[in-house]
């Protein structure tokens, strides 16, 4: 199975000491490493206001992780760990690789089009930054 990219965000109680948060992150990293995953990024956003109350708290300590993994039960295990730990009040995992793929496709398509367009605009009129009037017409004709 090919590798998948996930975003994992969890929120701890604002009263959690730093070491506790570091410990949770360490255990998660351990789990990921055990199952052949890779941690791309770990960001501590720190304590910030939440948009609504969670566990009777208005603030939460946000931690963001970006990870890659291929094993299907990796996320299950991570979420189980987060669920049982008392300090964590909310967590979310999002699979992103398909969206990234789509994004790259779009970028590629735009570049291809950009490569084609200069020739046309050069024929119509000189200048890399043409005025809106003449520029829109060839573009409309192309599409």
């Amino acid at each position, binding site marked *: 199975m090919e590798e998948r990219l996930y975003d994992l965000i969890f*929120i701890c109680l604002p009263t959690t000491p730093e070491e506790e948060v570091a410990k949770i992150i360490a255990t998660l990293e351990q789990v990921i490493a055990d199952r052949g995953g890779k941690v791309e990024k770990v960001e501590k956003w720190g304590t910030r206001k939440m948009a609504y109350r969670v566990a009777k708290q208005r603030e939460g300590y946000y931690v963001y992780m970006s990870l890659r993994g291929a094993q299907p039960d990796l996320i299950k295990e991570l979420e189980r760990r987060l669920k049982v730990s008392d300090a964590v009040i909310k967590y979310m995992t999002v699979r992103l690789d398909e969206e990234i793929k789509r*994004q790259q496709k779009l970028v590629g398509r735009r570049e291809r089009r950009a490569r084609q367009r200069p020739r046309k605009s050069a024929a119509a009129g000189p200048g890399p930054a043409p005025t809106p009037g003449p520029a829109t017409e060839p573009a409309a004709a192309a599409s």
Partner: protein
Amino acid sequence: MADEHTQAPRPSHSGPPREGRFGGGGGAGGGGPRRGKRQYFRKKKVCRFCVDKVDFIDYKKGDMLQSFVQDRGKIMPRRMTGTCSKHQRWLGVAIKRARNIALLPFATEL
């Protein structure tokens, strides 16, 4: 006079419903100007994401997404923001994700 009216729809955050409904009726192409002289020229809105060539709307940018929700937390309709259909679709997904991790409200409590 025309200038006053063209500017009116832009800060639509303040008084959305009336303006929005009217704009929607006009946008559907059917109704036209029913109420006398309320027909006015509207400046064409451009999709903010298309201008910046955004390919992926990040759900983590809560502050940016905040400008696409109303005071009570509703997602703003396209007719108010001018977002194109493609980006509106992505925006909706991003806003819903942001809501799930309390970056955006589901509904603001009063």
